[in-house]
Each structure stands twice: as C-alpha cells, then as structure tokens.
C-alpha cells in the first residue's frame, strides 16, 4: 500500500517536471532562469510571509501567554521575572522591527530586468551606530543580569536559612530535614544499608535529629537552603514555580537557597492560577481523568534514564504553624533506624 502511494507520488512528480520543462521550452527559456514574473511572485510571497509571521506571532502571544508559569512564589523569583520581562521586551521589539524590514526589503527590491542595483559597499557611520547601540543595550542587560544573578546565588538574609537535603536517585526524590540543630549529619552512598536509604552516618551526632521525608513542606517567608546529592547519575532539581534549579551531581554537594513567599493555599486563590486549573480540569474531565488541584512541584530536569519523565515530588508551602505540625509528625533518624 505504502509502496503504491510512493510509486504514484514519484510518477506524479516526474509528470509535473515534464510539464514545467515543456512549458519553459514553449516560452523559449530555460526553466531555471529567473524571470521578472518569478521575482514578482516570490517577492510578494516574501511580503505575505512577513505579514503572516507577525500576525501569528501576535496571535500566539495573545492566546498562549496564559500558559506560562504563574507569578513567582519566591523572593528572588520576582527579581528574575522583572529581568525576564525587560529582556523579553527588548528582544520582542527587535523581532517586530527587524523581521518586517527584512521581508519588506525582499519585496520592495524584488528584481526586474529594467532595473539596476545601487552599488553601495559600506558606510562606516551606519556600521558604527549598529555596533554601538546593541553594545549599549547589552551593557545594561549584562549589568542588570549579573547583579540579579549574584543576588540570587549569594542571598543575604537576617535569618539563618533552614537546611534541607534533596537526594536524587533513579527515579525518585527523598528529602532530609536538618532537625532542631539545623545541621545535616554526614552521609555517603557507602553507608546505604537496608532502611538507611540515604546512607546517613548514624554515628554522627548531628544526624540523630535529621528527618527523612517523601514530600517537601516549607514555612512561608523563611529562607531555605537546599543541599543536593545524587546517588547514581546527574539529576536536576527543577522547581519552576520558585524560579529555582540546580543539578544534583554524584560525588559532590550542590546548593541553592530561596525564600518562599506564597503559600500553596494562597496560590490556589490567585486569579491566574484559578483560570489555569479550570482549563486543565476541563481537559481532564473530558478525558475522564481525576480533577487536579494546583501544587508546587519538583521535577527532574536532567536526562537520567528511562523514567526521567516521571521523577517528581510535591512541594507544600504553608504557614509556620501548619509546618511545625507536619514536621512534628515526621520521625527522626534516631527513631527510624
């Protein structure tokens, strides 16, 4: 069947070519020569494409912007979003100016046999301008970017951040809270044994009050320092709602710190999120799947094997009281092992 279709397609193409060739012979001109008619047609198609590109660009902006991540749920995330918005305005402005000019020129200067191009080889002033102007714009973006980055990576908090270890393995996440001393006990893969899945050194006094959990709960407004470890391959702890990401690398510890600012309950009330959840649930109801409630999530974002696409963990941001209540229910390492 497929073969027949293929053969027919090839035969059609051959016939088409014969037609092209015969018709160009009839015009006493080789098929490959570019005629004024060709230039006219292609020039107009270029203009049409340019317009189409702009129209579809604005259509996508109008109908798909709502798909983007909702407002940031962390302190530094707001800085990142501001920088993102400014950079985005700059590049979109460039896009909607430069692309139309390109396609407009392609149409405007489409060839004609009675015209000659203008010999114009360079203009130092013009070239100077379009070297200096991008340089100035970029200087602003670079400085703004570098300050945002160092603020994000070296946050200055009055409060000592609460330490949580995030442990990655194919294909799940485990968290370890540092406990009342806010210090994690030593751990290494070589110490993994039976229920001690994180390889925590039970002889280390610091580890006794550590708590191992399968979900992350964070009190709102308190800085949290994540320390990442991996058991096997590189994973990446991606927490898009907090604008946070860091790789988990076997053999070393990496870290990322942020302060959550919006509780899960508050976020569920946010107008943007309400709309998003409604759209998602419309799709899910139609497919007969269970309803969805908005949650912050942690995803793996570095290829790590066959189930990479399903390596996730829930993150709950709540009030201090709710958090303390949850934490009290979790068992310490000393109780567990």
């Amino acid at each position, binding site marked *: 069947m497929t073969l027949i279709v293929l053969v027919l397609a090839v035969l059609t*193409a051959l016939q088409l070519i014969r037609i092209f060739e015969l018709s160009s012979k009839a015009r006493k001109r080789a098929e490959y020569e570019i005629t004024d008619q060709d230039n006219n047609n292609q020039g107009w198609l270029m203009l049409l494409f340019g317009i189409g590109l702009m129209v579809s660009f604005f259509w996508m902006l109008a109908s798909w912007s709502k798909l983007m991540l909702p407002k940031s749920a962390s302190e530094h995330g707001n800085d990142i979003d501001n920088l993102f918005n400014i950079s985005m305005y700059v590049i979109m402005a460039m896009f909607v100016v430069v692309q139309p000019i*390109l396609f407009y*020129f*392609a149409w405007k*200067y489409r060839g004609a046999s009675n015209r000659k191009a203008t010999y114009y080889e360079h203009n130092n002033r013009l070239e100077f301008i*379009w070297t200096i102007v*991008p340089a100035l714009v970029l200087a602003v973006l670079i400085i703004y970017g570098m300050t945002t980055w160092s603020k994000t990576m070296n946050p200055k908090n009055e409060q000592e951040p609460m330490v949580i270890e995030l442990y990655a393995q194919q294909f799940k996440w485990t968290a370890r809270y540092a406990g009342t001393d806010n210090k994690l006990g030593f751990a290494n893969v070589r110490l993994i044994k039976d229920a001690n899945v994180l390889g925590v050194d039970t002889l280390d006094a610091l580890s006794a009050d550590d708590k191992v959990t399968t979900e992350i709960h964070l009190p709102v407004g308190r800085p949290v320092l994540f320390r990442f470890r991996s058991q096997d391959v590189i994973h990446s702890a991606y927490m898009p*709602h907090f604008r946070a990401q860091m790789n988990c690398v076997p053999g070393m510890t990496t870290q990322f710190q942020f302060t959550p600012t919006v509780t899960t309950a508050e976020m569920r009330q946010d107008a943007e999120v309400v709309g998003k959840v409604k759209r998602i649930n419309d799709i899910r109801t139609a497919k007969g799947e269970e309803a969805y409630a908005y949650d912050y999530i942690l995803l793996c974002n570095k*290829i790590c094997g066959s189930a990479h696409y399903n390596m996730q963990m829930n993150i709950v941001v709540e009030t201090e009281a709710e958090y303390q209540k949850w934490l009290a229910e979790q068992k310490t390492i000393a109780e567990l092992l």
Partner: protein
Amino acid sequence: MADHAHDHAHDAHDDHEHHTENFWTKYVFSMDHKMIGKQFLITGMFMGLIGVFMSMLFRLQLAWPGESFPILETFLGKWAPDGVMDPNMYLALVTIHGTIMVFFVLTAGLSGTFSNLLIPLQIGARDMASGFLNMLSYWFFAASSVVMVVSLFVETGPASGGWTVYPPLSALPQAMPGSGAGMTLWLVSMTLFIAGSLLGSLNYIVTVINLRTKGMSMTRLPLTIWAFFVTAILGVLSFPVLLSAALLLMMDRMLGTSFYLSDIMVAGELLGNQGGSPVLYEHLFWFLGHPEVYIILLPALGITSEVIATNSRKPIFGYRAMIGSILAIAFLSFIVWGHHMFVTGMNPFLGSVFTFTTLLIAIPSAVKAFNYITTLWKGNIQFTPAMLFSIGLVSTFVAGGLTGIILGDSALDINVHDTYFVVAHFHIVMGLSAIFGMFAGVYHWFPKMYGRMMNKSMGYLHFWLTFVSAYGVFFPMHFTGLAGLPRRYYSNAEFPIFDELQDINVIITMFAIGGGIAQLIFIFNFFYSMWRGPKAPQNPWKSNTLEWTTPVEHIHGNWPGALPEVHRWAYDYSKPGHDEDFVVQTTPLKDGEQAH
C-alpha cells in the same frame, strides 16, 4: 607568497596528468576535492534523512503519548511493542537525532561539502594542499557514519543519554540500556569522526594560507572562504578537547578509571569509583560544544554572504565588518562555554563571567544581521531558490539569536535551562539557519557540482513548505518552554500542570511531519536533476567568483590552462562604469577605476 604557491600548484598538477582514472580512483577513493565534496554531501544527506525521520517518530510519541502507531513497530520492532514506543527508545531517538544532525549533517555534511568544493575553486588552486589527507578525512567520516548507523541495531539499543552523553549516565551500562554497546559504538564513531574532521580542517587552513592564486589577497577572498577558514581553525582548536573527553569516558567505561565517577550506587550496586567529577566532563564537552555551534553556523553564514550579494546584484555591505564579526564571533566562542553550565554546581562567580562574555556575542551577530539586510536594500533581488533559503536564514538567525539574550543570562537561565525554550532557541538559530545555509549552498552550487541545473519550481515549493513548517515547529516551543516543560521527556502526561500544552504539541507534530515530508521534494529534485536536469551554463548566476571561470565539465586541476589571476574583490556587482551588473574577479581594473 601567492606567486610561489601558484607555481608550486602548477607543478603538482603536471605530476598528476599522467594518472589514468578508473571507477575506484574517480568515484570511491578520489583525491579530487570536487568529488570529495560530493561524497561528503551525499553521505551527509543520507544521514540527514535518518536524523529527520527519527524526529518525526518521536514527535508522534510527543503529540499522542502512549498511543499505538503500527508504523512505530515497523521501524522500531521490539522497541515499540504493539506500536507504543518504549521510553528508552524515545531517549535513543532524541540522542541519535541530535548527534546526527549536529555532527554528521551540519558539521561534515555542510562544512565538509562546501569547504572541499569551494576552497580550491574560489581561491584559484588546483586542489587541496594534500589530496591524500583530504581523501582520508572523508573515509574517516564515512567509517564513523557506518559505525553510528550500526549502533542503531545493537541488542541493547543505541546511545540514549542525550547528544551530550553526560556521565555517569553514559558511563554506566547499569544506568540505562542505551549505555551499553550502543554507547561504546557512539564513542568509537565520534573518535573516527573527530580524526576525520581534524584532517579536513588542517587541510583547509593550509590550503587557504598557501595556495591562493596570484592577486588573491586575504582582503579579496570571498566571505565563504573566510568563513570556512575560521571554521577550520575553530575545529582544530576545539575538537581535540572533545576527543580527550571521549577517551577519558571510554577509560571510565572499560578500564575502571574514575575521571568522571565518584561515590555511586546504581541499580543496587555500589561502585568503587572515587574522586572523579562529571563536571569535568561537562567542561571538556562544552569547550568543544560551544565553538561547535559556530563550526556549524559560520559556513552557513559564509554561503549566505555569497548568495545574498550575488542575487541582490550588490556588494555585500560592510565586507571588512563582516570579516571582523566572523573573527570576533570565533574568538568569543572559546570563552562562553560555561553558559551551558550555569546550574551544574559550577562556582556562581563563573556564572557572572560567562554571562558577560556570552552576551557580547550579540554585538558581532547584530552587525552581521544588519549588514545582510542592508545588502538587500536598493538591490535588484533575483529570487533563485538559493536566495530564498538565504533570506530564510537571516530571518531564523535573527529570531533564534534574540532568545540567546535570555538564555545567556545566568539569572534567567536558572528557570529556562533544559526546557523547550532552549530547544526552540538552538533549533532556530543553529539548526534552521545552518540547514537553510546548506540548502542555499546546494541550490547555488549544484551546477558547479553536477554540471546541471536543479528544477526551480520544485525549489520554490521546497523552500516555502520548509520555511513555514520550520517556524510552525519551533516557534510554539518557546511557549511550552516558558510553561516549564522540560526537554527529553518521553511524555508530559504524568504532570497535570502540562495538560494544557498538549494541543500545542499536536500542532508542532503536524508541522514536523509536513516539513519532514517536504524534504522528499528536495531529494527528488536533487537526484532527478543530477541525471536529467538541463545542462548548466558556465556562470548561471552571473557571479564574480573564480569557481565560475572553470569549465562546466570537471577536470582534474580545475583550470585547463594557467591559473587565473585576480585583480579585484569578489563583490563588484552593479559597479558603475561597467556594462554588465557583475565583474568577474579576473577582470583587470580599468584605467582610473577605484578598487572597492
């Protein structure tokens, strides 16, 4: 120097004249740069078909995850039981698609083809400095292609750790099936590939420096040659680093060393490796990986400079600025690799440094884009299929380049790293631009390669279908990326939050399939024209450069008599004081005529 080179090349040519060519020396183990260029092109096209076809298969899975497609079982066999793709096979397909497109199509297929074809022809040389090394370079590439294709058929499947093959995933067969024999073959293939690429690059550099004909000063070189020359330098300086990364990875896999491995327990087994770091691999890989982007892109930009100038019937605007921007981009490309590693755990201070260097690249890139557009201004544009693809390249270069300003900024990269935003960015700026440059090159120089003309109408059809579907595939990915969707996910059905992206995924797949099928028009046109196309005139595009002064029929040594002597730059189009709107480089300056 040019004088001496001229004589030398001539002597060398005389030695060759007594050769009688048989089938093997002419078509297979050829030492003629024109034939070697064609060999690179055909091999690259074959690999390209595999790469594009793979992308169509995994797009099916992404649009309709978990649904059964009999075609998947036909092609993937046990990897798609009942027509549902296995997650390991999905990862293998994206890995091999990336490897093939980046290295085999857009490095060897693009640079290999056109550097070989055009360097001797456009600088006025009989052949490459070393025909033998040139032949070896192709055969290393051919061997690496064979090994790569063979790796698709091993029991445990092809390499599937992503085209960057980060260890420990790629180092440990226990971590995934694709890290078994398939990964070993991947490394063997890449080692051969790098050897071939180095031999080619050295040859290009030596040829451009030594074998330019009389009068062909560096500032009279067509921009194609400048691009190929600088590309070759990038290759020579960066590919060896990838080779060492690959060798160390092989040792970790086979000899029990610990360059990249430390403190690992995988599949319940505790490994003895200690002290290594995967971050070391990432540094080595991206030290090649970033220049590689420009190894791919610069030849496409060089081709575009030539095609846009010729078909606008105008000099390329700002010739010296174009050379300057090539050199600036090449220099910067060596000090920006860290922008692939902002969230790897690298010292955050380095993040600032790499943000600074990375965003600087936007300046020479902007100069190039503006200069292309100004070249069109007040031109007399001849819309050959090559010209369409070149204008397409300028469009994608701008569209994709701009999002680099987001990704190169470490603070912003935190949240878009490894999402579909990145996939959109690099496919548009590097994938599309380079493949458009390659198409432009094929349409433009097909008459030089095969002595026949390609069909114009099919070229037009091919361009518009490709251009529309290219934007249709990659533009929407910006939005799924900003919604937080990670790349290399077999399915996003496990996260309800991504449910509303599924419609977009379907649209993308539709365009991908349409765009993929449209390439058959090109393949058909290519082979049909090779045998049945109308005979080419000597200078079909009324171009200034030297390759069009050679006879249509290929001869060994390129020019039947003495080598041509060059009197002007390559861009005297529509110059006042001349009857025609082009002046071939061999035309002496008239009395009182100003050089450019």
